């Protein structure tokens, strides 16, 4: 994705994030059984802002908004699992491509994942990576789920990657 398209897509996400109803997000997660300690820390994540030029980007809200989409698109996943899987996959994808966001995110998200205690194996051992490296792959539902999550986050990661040089605090 080139920088101009990335910026355009980011602005579109930003305008959607402006109308993101945080209380509906909170209500949905609480009613699904997520503890309020997790929910409030996700909300803290949602308050993070970065800048592209003079335009503030609600990067945290964008991530929350997309995370909620992931939860809604996978109703058969336990919500805690969906949150942990979704966020862990995103962090894994960002941390090497955009350490600037990746490390910041992992600092917030890792404890969330730890609290939810999701059995996520190393991303290094992920099936796709294994196949790419010519390694034998096992028949793992977890790896399939990681594939789903990776596909889900690909667009967001591509957008962040395209504009990474312009993103600043």
């Amino acid at each position: 994705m080139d920088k101009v398209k990335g910026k355009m897509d980011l602005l579109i996400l930003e305008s959607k994030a402006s109308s993101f109803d945080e209380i509906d997000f909170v209500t949905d997660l609480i009613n699904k059984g997520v503890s309020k300690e997790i929910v409030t820390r996700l909300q803290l994540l949602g308050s993070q802002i970065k800048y592209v030029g003079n335009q503030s980007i609600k990067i945290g809200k964008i991530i929350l908004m997309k995370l909620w989409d992931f939860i809604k698109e996978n109703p058969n996943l336990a919500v805690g699992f969906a949150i942990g899987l979704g966020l862990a996959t995103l962090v894994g994808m960002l941390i090497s491509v955009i350490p600037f966001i990746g490390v910041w995110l992992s600092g917030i998200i890792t404890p969330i994942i730890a609290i939810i205690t999701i059995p996520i194996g190393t991303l290094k051992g992920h099936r796709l990576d294994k196949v790419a490296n010519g390694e034998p792959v096992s028949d793992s539902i977890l790896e399939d789920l990681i594939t789903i999550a990776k596909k889900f986050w690909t667009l967001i990661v591509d957008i962040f990657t395209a504009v990474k040089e312009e993103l600043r605090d």
Partner: protein
Amino acid sequence: MTKLEEYEQALRKIEKNPNDRIGILGKVGILTGGVFGGAAVATVVGGGTIWGFTTAASWIGVTLVSAAALPVVLVGAGAGLAIAGGVAYFLNSGSKCDLMTTQNIQNLKKKIEEEKNKLKNSSDEDRISKLSGIYANLIHLNLITEDIAEELLQNIADNKINFDLAYETALELLHSVESIKEEDIKISEELNLITEKLKAYNIDTKVFYRVSILLTHTINVDDSIKREELVVCHKYFEENYKLTQKEFATLFVNLPTIDSIETFIEELFKFDIM
């Protein structure tokens, strides 16, 4: 589940224990971070409390069991530091999260209020919409004018007129039209005769139907005057002589008892209005 029920359920869950339990752990200083910290917090968040443990060691012992079952591994340099730092952040963010919880409670209460108002307004809107439909029928039957209907609806919306009274009155008026219709069908032969007589006096025959409704609502019809034999063309007088409903009713009441349309018309001619 409706939106209102969802908000109320979420509020009940949050208000049950509004304090941030992880923050409490941080303050107590039991946890220092790392996977142990994460799993310990998991125990708390999962429903256990620190109050059930007499020593930190035993508490850590329990969490170790939880941690062993479900490890978290993240690839990347600094992941270990991130975990440790992250958990410390987690523990120290308790007060921020307490504030967030308070805001969530306030926002949920606002949302609940908004939903309740929406429900109330939509039920009010349904009723006003039904009443508007009845008024449209009454306008079509020339029983009320558009201006009157509009004024009534505005006053109802401003709570100056009681909705229930306005609705019942409108329904009564509409039903009285229907009841008269039935009677008109029964006496069609007599009405035909009356119509012929009215034509002789060049009075619009369409209006006698409307006027008979007025008779039932505005004045007491003398028994000697049979409603079906007496056509009081209020509409005719309203259009041609600018008489209001009240004025016409007054005119009619002041007329002597008459037993035929001919007599009535003759009496009317005695007034300067003809």
